[in-house]
């Protein structure tokens, strides 16, 4: 089946979170993997002194459990798409094309800019939709609930601005 019920998928992710707590003693998260990647790339250019930056002393630029998890997401989504026969190279999302037109350069630049802001904000907030939005909230962490409300407040406002005002 191409799409599963969101409730089945949510149940699966909830069980998967429990498995991660049992076998790895870690909550599922994604955004530190991007910070570590950034540090590893910077180290290629600037050498070992990058390891001494205050941020990378906390989040060492190495391949760790969470980095492998993000790599696994790419593989898992690829397998899912191939198995349901929906894998396809998509130059532009349909919704974007219907409002913003056919230029994929414009979309990729918008995505790049969005990614820069998101990566910056995720590390500012100390987590993303997975680490705060799912793992933090399910632990009933105050930080998780505050973060997810802020993510959606900012996200809804920006999406409305783009699709209702600008485009």
């Amino acid at each position, binding site marked *: *089946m191409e799409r599963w019920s*969101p409730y089945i*998928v*949510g149940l699966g*992710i*909830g069980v998967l979170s*429990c*498995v991660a707590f049992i076998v*790895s*003693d*870690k909550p*599922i998260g*994604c955004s530190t*993997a*991007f910070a570590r*990647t*950034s*540090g590893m790339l910077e180290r290629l250019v600037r050498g070992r002194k990058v390891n001494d930056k205050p941020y990378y002393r906390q989040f060492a630029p190495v391949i760790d*459990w969470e980095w492998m*998890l*993000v*790599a696994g*997401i790419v593989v*898992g*989504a690829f*397998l899912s798409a191939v198995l349901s026969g929906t*894998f*396809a190279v998509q130059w*532009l*999302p349909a*919704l*974007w094309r219907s409002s913003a037109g056919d230029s994929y350069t414009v979309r990729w*630049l918008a*995505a*790049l800019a*969005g*990614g*820069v*802001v*998101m*990566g*910056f*904000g*995720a*590390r*500012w*907030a100390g987590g*993303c*939709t997975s680490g705060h939005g799912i793992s933090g909230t*399910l632990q009933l*962490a*105050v*930080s998780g609930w505050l973060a997810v409300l802020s*993510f959606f*407040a*900012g996200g*809804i406002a*920006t999406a*409305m601005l*783009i699709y209702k005002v600008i485009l």
Partner: protein
Amino acid sequence: MLNSIRLHKGVQLIIGLLIGIVFGFLLQKGGVTQYDVIMGQLLLVDFTVVKVMLTAVVTGMIGVHVLRVAGFASLHPKPGSLGSTAVGGLIFGVGFGLLGYCPGTVAGAAGQGSLDALFGGIVGIVIGAGLFAAVYPRLSETILKKGAFGEMTLPELMRVKPGAAVAVAAAALIALLVVIEKSGI
């Protein structure tokens, strides 16, 4: 036995990869690796993302708290502050609305063949995280500390037992899911 697995670095890397594969598989099957579905949520016309997240939270919340009482899991709530969590969260949200994926689903979108996620989103998030690392020393003792509340949980904040908080939160979230489902969004 459990501890030797948790402390074995090589095994943990493989477990991380396997958990990621299942996570990515589920995200793709749920449709939440699609830009249109995520933007549909932010434009409040398609509640798939909220349905997936709330169901995951209810399931995981009950599961993890039962496991904790049984001695198989420990909680690791992240520390937070208004200056870090709320301000950073709003910045994240602006990126969320512009990109249309989040750091987990952007990886899944790349896996299903979405080129805007691969060439735009992933590259952007890596750059943004690197920029944050560069300015971190100037923020760490100032805004990030404003209104700090530490690793607090909601039961601690409200001075109730964790079990009672889980029961109330689970009931409230399930009720919210029922309302969303009944309203047909």
